[in-house]
């Protein structure tokens, strides 16, 4: 018998309310299957079954609230069971049609073969060549794996031609829910948005000089290191104040121009890409921005960003300079309509007047949604950012 207890889902959680049991008493349940929905003051979460077996007893019924760690149900453990909700955990050949029917009630569904079946000859060949049948989609009657199906795989292995040999798999990891959501959102956006990327080299001589001039003072004042990202963010914020059309989003057939300038700053942390947002940067001087961005970066690295910290952006800056990237095509971060990619600042032979000089150059790559921003507008905006950076006195003075 396995006791299922009211889980502690957060630091402050003391009690939880049962919203809904996904299983009934007597139902079979697999480890990892959704078992019960629990609500705290903040969130509703689905708790997965800690074990495989039969849900013997539901101790706490729907709509009741109990303290954490209190027993809410009892599962009688068993080896592999066919879940009442559909396929067993071992199923690999797609979703069982039984389950499909459950979920897609009233929807015409194409049937996919329920389980793996293999013909006697195919089995023999598979045994001989140690073929993993789970990886083969049967083409025979009823989706049976035929000798041809197996032979094809074996042949491709043997001629070793790179086109036909499947790469060896190291591991397969299920995407977690947020990752999947992001993936879906990005793929959808990428397909649906006619986006364009333009690039522009910027002479960073003045920026570099300015940074050198003021970085100690800034650090003294704020305790934070002044980075180029801070300066670029300030420049972008200033330019956006002049180019309001860029600080916009598309909602169906309406173009919504946004008053607040909320700058998203892409940051790479261990778990992946995060984009914390500096809210209302239009009112901030460089010092404010340094403090704000540094705070957000710290929070991001230590996993303390709140949902609020990560939403509401109107324009994103992604700096890959630290990785030596020069030019790239950043992806829009919907619903924003533009994103600025910043490359590495490095010295190039630059024509100044009629002379060639070694100058620090940085290339800006700006991607925008062409439905609401025309190329010329985006170019003028970039020119403006460039202008601010090539003559950054205003920024410096402000600080």
């Amino acid at each position: 018998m396995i006791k299922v207890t009211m889980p502690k889902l957060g630091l402050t959680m003391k009690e939880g309310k049962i919203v809904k049991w996904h299983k009934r008493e007597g139902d079979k349940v697999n480890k990892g299957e959704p078992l019960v929905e629990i609500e705290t003051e903040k969130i509703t979460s689905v708790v997965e079954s800690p074990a495989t077996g039969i849900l013997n007893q539901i101790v706490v019924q729907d709509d009741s609230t109990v303290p954490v760690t209190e027993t809410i149900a009892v599962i009688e453990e068993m080896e592999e069971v066919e879940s009442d909700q559909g396929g067993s955990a071992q199923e690999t050949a797609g979703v069982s049609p039984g389950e499909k029917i459950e979920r897609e009630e009233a929807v015409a569904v194409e049937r996919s073969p329920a389980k793996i079946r293999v013909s006697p000859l195919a089995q023999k060949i598979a045994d001989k060549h140690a073929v993993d049948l789970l990886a083969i989609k049967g083409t025979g009657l009823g989706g049976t794996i035929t000798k041809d199906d197996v032979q094809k795989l074996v042949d491709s292995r043997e001629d070793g031609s790179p086109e036909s040999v499947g790469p060896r798999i190291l591991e397969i990891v299920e995407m977690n829910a947020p990752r999947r959501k992001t993936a879906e959102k990005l793929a959808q956006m990428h397909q649906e948005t006619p986006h364009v990327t333009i690039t522009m080299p910027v002479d960073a001589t003045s920026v570099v000089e300015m940074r050198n001039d003021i970085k100690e003072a800034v650090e003294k004042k704020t305790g934070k290191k002044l980075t180029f990202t801070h300066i670029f963010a300030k420049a972008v914020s200033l330019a956006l104040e002049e180019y309001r059309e860029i600080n916009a989003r598309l909602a169906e057939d309406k173009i919504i121009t946004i008053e607040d300038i909320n700058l998203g700053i892409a940051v790479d942390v261990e778990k992946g890409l995060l984009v914390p947002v500096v809210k209302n940067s239009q009112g901030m001087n460089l010092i404010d921005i340094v403090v704000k961005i540094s705070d957000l970066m710290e929070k991001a690295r230590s996993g303390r960003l709140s949902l609020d910290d990560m939403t509401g952006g109107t324009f994103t800056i992604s700096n890959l300079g630290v990785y030596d990237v020069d030019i790239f095509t950043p992806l829009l971060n919907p619903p924003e309509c533009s994103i600025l990619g910043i490359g590495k600042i490095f010295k190039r032979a630059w024509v100044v007047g009629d002379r060639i000089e070694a100058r620090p150059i940085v290339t800006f790559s700006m991607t925008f949604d062409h439905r609401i921003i025309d190329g010329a507008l985006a170019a003028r905006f970039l020119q403006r950012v460039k202008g601010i950076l090539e003559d950054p006195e205003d920024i410096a003075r402000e600080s």
Partner: protein
Amino acid sequence: MEITKETLLEMYRKMQLIRYFEARTKELFAAGKVPGFVHLYSGEEGIAVGVCSALRQNDYIGSTHRGHGHCIAKGGDVKYMMAELYGKETGYCKGKGGSMHIADFDLGILGACGIVGGSIPLSTGAALHFKYNGTDQVAVTFFGDGATNQGSFHESINLAAIWDLPVIFVCENNKYAESTSISSVMKVEKISERASGYGVPGITVDGNDVIAVYETTLEVVERARKGKGPTLVECVTCRHQGHYEGDSGTYRTKEMVEECKKRCPIKRLCTFLQEEGFSSKKEIEDIDKSVEKEVEAAIEFAEKSPWPKPEDALTDVFVSPYY
């Protein structure tokens, strides 16, 4: 899901029995031995056999004007069938029904039906009977693509849906309602889409893949037995012959019919069984021979059987005497 060799060979035998029965019926019709209308099932065997192999003997099927295949698949004896086709007294219906009206309640055959869509409400009623009596039997109603334009289909599937009746709606989509292409009489791409209008799951399956039909039926029957209600299963197929014997078939090109024959469910299973090592050539040949023998014996039985007595035309209207 394991299918035993026995099941596979039995499915092959039944499909072959239908095919041979129909081939001989065609000849006998042409020879003037079989009177009336004859609608042949050749080419669609995968559906009747796939579906009926997933049923128990006490499950019931309702059939159509193209019903020989269903009857054989559910275990009907070709001897009594052939005698009925001849109109002989020894036939399943004592010569009163003929090709379009064959029933055998002992085998769960509710009867074929001359009206397109006519038997759908009856099979639904059989399911009502099962539910009313709390048995776990199921009813299957076979009908063609054309029947899904009939009100009886709509009314029955709705009734089955609201009452969760254990009935499987099996649509044999051979793409032609008599001579009329379904594309000109319905807007949906798949007939299974119609299920959504009734809150019922709809599934489309290759009707010429007997194993796929069998497995699909197993699943939806299981669902029905558990009281979870009906399913619409669309089996896509094609017929090798015309709508009935005597149909010139000009609405299909020769190429279309040839293409259709290439997808023959029997040939596919036969090749599959041998090439994949389920059975030997000899086993297949033995089945073919036994089937041939069975049908020939049925024809002999029909030939030798007596005609019904003319006065019998007045019996069987009522349980009580004729009024």
